């Protein structure tokens, strides 16, 4: 059921003409994913998903859309005719290909989940031990993004 909702909301995200509606459907999609994370024993990620993704990032999107005042206006001509068909057809082809490959599966055997799998505690532990360097580099990444946004978006420089 959650999955169905996820798919529908995903499709609607890309098909809605109004960007604001798209954002809202995307947020819905993210909520569905968070639910799925929970079923997959990823509690911490589920929380992050809602807080950071659906909360912070999507709000940012919404904010920018509002800021630029991008309505469902007439200038927003969507592509028509053949190129749309080509795009959809290609997407379907890729889907079929992926399906073919995934179904040939031979997935590795599943393992028993360790104790406390997916909790914030376990998660944090390995993050700060085994993945310390990536974590630190993420901070650099965010710093770079910060500076970058400043460069690009500050009003006046000269």
């Amino acid at each position: 059921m959650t999955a169905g909702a996820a798919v529908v909301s995903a499709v609607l995200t890309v098909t809605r003409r109004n960007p604001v509606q798209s954002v809202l459907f995307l947020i819905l999609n993210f909520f569905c994913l968070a639910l799925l994370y929970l079923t997959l024993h990823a509690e911490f990620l589920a929380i992050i998903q809602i807080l950071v993704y659906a909360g912070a990032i999507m709000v940012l999107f919404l904010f920018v859309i509002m800021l630029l005042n991008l309505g469902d206006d007439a200038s927003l001509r969507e592509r028509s005719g053949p190129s749309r068909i080509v795009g959809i057809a290609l997407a379907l082809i890729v889907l079929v290909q992926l399906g073919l490959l995934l179904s040939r599966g031979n997935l590795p055997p599943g393992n028993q989940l360790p104790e406390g799998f997916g909790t914030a505690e376990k998660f944090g532990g390995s993050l700060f031990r085994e993945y310390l360097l990536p974590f630190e580099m993420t901070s650099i990444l965010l710093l770079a993004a910060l500076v970058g946004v400043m460069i690009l978006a500050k009003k006046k420089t000269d």
Partner: protein
Amino acid sequence: MNEQAKAVLSLYPALILIFPLLGFLLNGLAGKKIASEKISGIIGSGVIGISFLLSAFILSELLARPPEERSFTVTLFNWIAAGGLSVDAAYHIDQLSVLMMLIVTGVGFLIHVYSIGYMRGDPAFWRFFSYLNLFIFMMLNLVMADNFLLMFLGWEWVGLCSYLLIGFWHARKFDTGGYAPGAATTSDAAKKAFVVNRIGDAGFLIAMFMIFAATGTLNFETLFTQAPARFALNEPLIVGITLLLFLGATGKSAQIPLYIWLPDAMAGPTPVSALIHAATMVTAGVYMVARCSVLFVLAPATMETVAIVGIATAFFAATMGLVQTDIKKILAYSTISQLGYMFAGLGVGAFTAGLFHVTTHAFFKALLFLGAGAVIHALHDEQDVTKMGGLKKFMPGTYRTQFIAALAIAGVPPLSGFFSKDEILWKAFSGGSAVIWVVGWLTAGLTAFYMFRMMTLVFEGEPRFAHDRHPHEAPATMLVPLVILAFLSVAGGFLGIPQALGGGNILELWLEPVFERSLGILGSATHGSLSTEYLLMALSVAVGLAGIFLARTLYLSRRELVERMAGRFAATHGLLFHKYYVDETFDAVIVNPLKAGSRGLLWKGIDARIIDGAVNGCARLLNSLSTSARKAQTGNVSNYGLAVLIGISLLLGFIIARWNG
């Protein structure tokens, strides 16, 4: 003869060669600085004179030896050696080469002396002499060579000298007679001579390849010794070789089909015509065939060809000579005709007779040319016989010498021409070729006719030249050689008075060892008796005299008859006058299509259109490919994303196709 004497003797050939070379270099490099005609002339003629004396000395040395020892070889250095081929710069002196050396240096010396007078005042006097010396040097190389390659060296260079000397006055206009009228200069004639010769030379060259491929040598002695064993009689290979050699000879000696250059070669200064285009160079072909007689007799088919081509040339050239008006051209056709005789002689196996005619012809034809030169000189470069006449009284010395020469060529006994020509005809007849005899006999009549037509038009009758011209007798430097040559024209015949007339035929005896081998192969099948020989002699004398008589009658007293005949037989006259339109045919069939084809088809067509078209077409193709492919780069991100997804899809498709786990 002791060793020391032999060693000294072996120096002579080198000396004989070096002197003309020296003269060439002195005059050629320093002539302009010397700036004295006298010194240039003395150097030029002197070196040839020395060579003549040295040649005479060799002759005397050889005479002192028994006949079978009358040859020796001098090797100077190894010229070309590569792989199996080794060619020396070596000179072979034997009876034949000594004969030719004497003719070349002797007649050459006289013509050099003559030229001092003839070329007086020419701004390039020194250059003229250097060319002449170079010619002699190379001609000596030709006749003294002991192998084909060295002979070919001389062969080519004499052609070059001929080229340089024909075009000596390269800025002068020259009427080639119908062909490129008015536009041609002497240099056109020079080029034509060289190129036509080259066609023959290519034959010579290919013959050498065949000889080398077959026998691995180009040395005369080695080859001639091997040849009878190596080649079967009339084997295609030997026929091919000899035919190609003969092709070379037709080029150099102006035989059908390559004779066309010689009449034009008359554009050169007259001493050049005398020396190169009458006395020496043009006989190189005869010499070569004689030298290679062993090969030729192994190919009777070729011999027959030589004889037929020779006699045909003799006849047709004589017919063309009938109507020419240019004094030098008359002589030129006469030369071609006489050369034809020589080849006819060679062709029937009368090698000695051929060479005998070479010798006598050298004397009287040189004399004729030099005399013509004196006339032209006297009339300030007038060459048209119809604008001459009555010169007998202005230039008596010249006239007398010319008369002797004309008689000699007309075959009036006991002048030299009679003996040599008659020997050829007799040998032809006795060898079983009656047709050749008949044609030769007719030609003899024609010869006598056109010679005396010329004599009459030039010297007899009323003067027809412009009144501002004051003919005068030639200066001593010119006249003395004329006299000497006249003497030789008379006396030359005594070298070869046939046994039938009680002569010893000195020349035949002298040359016997040279042709021993070939005559051995040929065998001697002589038909006809002594009485036949006398009869034939009488017939040829008669036809000669008839020709003389007819010419004198027609051109002295019955001029109107000539005009009428020319009118009546206009077509024939035109045909003869235009030399059977051979030049025009050559131009139309070979030269012009070749030029047009090279320009239109090869250059503009294949080169520019096809090859370069393909090359540039590739470039253009890439360019248009690029121009159209660029359009895919629309600038639209969606399309770029599409491309990315296509790529991904292709990758996945590839994995689907290849994976088989």
